[in-house]
């Protein structure tokens, strides 16, 4: 299937991740704004990376609607974003790993130059931003986001 072909991800892309409606997975940071907590974006132990999706292929609304495939109501869930260049600034990488459920699925991965650590997740979390409810409803796959 063409849409499952792995693609290179450019630095200026935005990637998205679902944020649960409980517990408190978002944090208002003075001078920064509303972000994800570092714990909301970490990978599971034993997994190679943290799952995200590419905005060029998957809209935030579609990302939330995927919850229903697991019988979960998307009500109250949020979406956070981060720019790929911000991930790569910390010497991590973003790899496109499309699935049948989500053609835009990708993972933040370690590199030979940078392993996952609590401090790295904390630094990444400060670069995230929680999308507004309007952005979730109106952003389409392929849209650009201002800083």
């Amino acid at each position, binding site marked *: 299937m063409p849409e499952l072909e792995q693609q290179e991800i450019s630095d200026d892309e935005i990637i998205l991740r679902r944020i649960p409606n409980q517990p408190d997975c978002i944090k208002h940071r003075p001078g920064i704004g509303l972000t994800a907590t570092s714990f909301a974006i970490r990978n599971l132990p034993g997994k190679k990376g943290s799952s995200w999706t590419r905005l060029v292929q998957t809209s935030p609304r579609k990302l939330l609607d995927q919850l229903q495939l697991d019988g979960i109501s998307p009500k109250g869930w949020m979406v956070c974003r981060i720019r790929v260049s911000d991930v790569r600034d910390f010497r991590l990488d973003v790899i496109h790993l499309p699935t049948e459920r989500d053609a835009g699925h990708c993972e933040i991965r370690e590199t030979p130059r940078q392993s996952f650590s609590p401090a790295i997740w904390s*630094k990444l979390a400060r670069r995230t931003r929680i999308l507004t409810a309007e952005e979730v409803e109106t952003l389409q796959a392929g849209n650009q986001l201002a800083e």
Partner: protein
Amino acid sequence: MSQASAIDATELAFFEATSVPTTATSTGEAWAPKPATLALREETSAWLSERVDRLRRLLGLQENWDSYGAKPIDPRSVEFAVRLLTSLADVDGIEAPTVTASPDGNAALCWDDGHRSLDVEILADGSIEYAYLNDEDHEGTTLDAEDLAILLTQS
């Protein structure tokens, strides 16, 4: 057995024996020099009981609560987190943290004042993993609540 009732008397005895220090003036070896004392509040912080309630509610999180495969929260982690938070609430200048959970199934606490942040994960064995971002970033593991109190109150 539900998670909330998974702690039996034997485990509680374990908590008593191995819990993190419950006073902010405890002494001991640590990774950094400590001040002689931390300033203690005359009364425990008003935010404590509400944040403890939030910690206990973590036990209601089901498998895959984040939709990415997160584990249910270990009751031992929550109990250690309650003890840690109770200790920190006695220290003057420490604000209420964000109470959350890690995908590994542990209770977690976050502070961020815009200039520095401290993210803390309380493991089921009582150890505390933390990441502190400031002018000089560092991370580590401790068993001592005082280490965190110093980070949160140093100017």
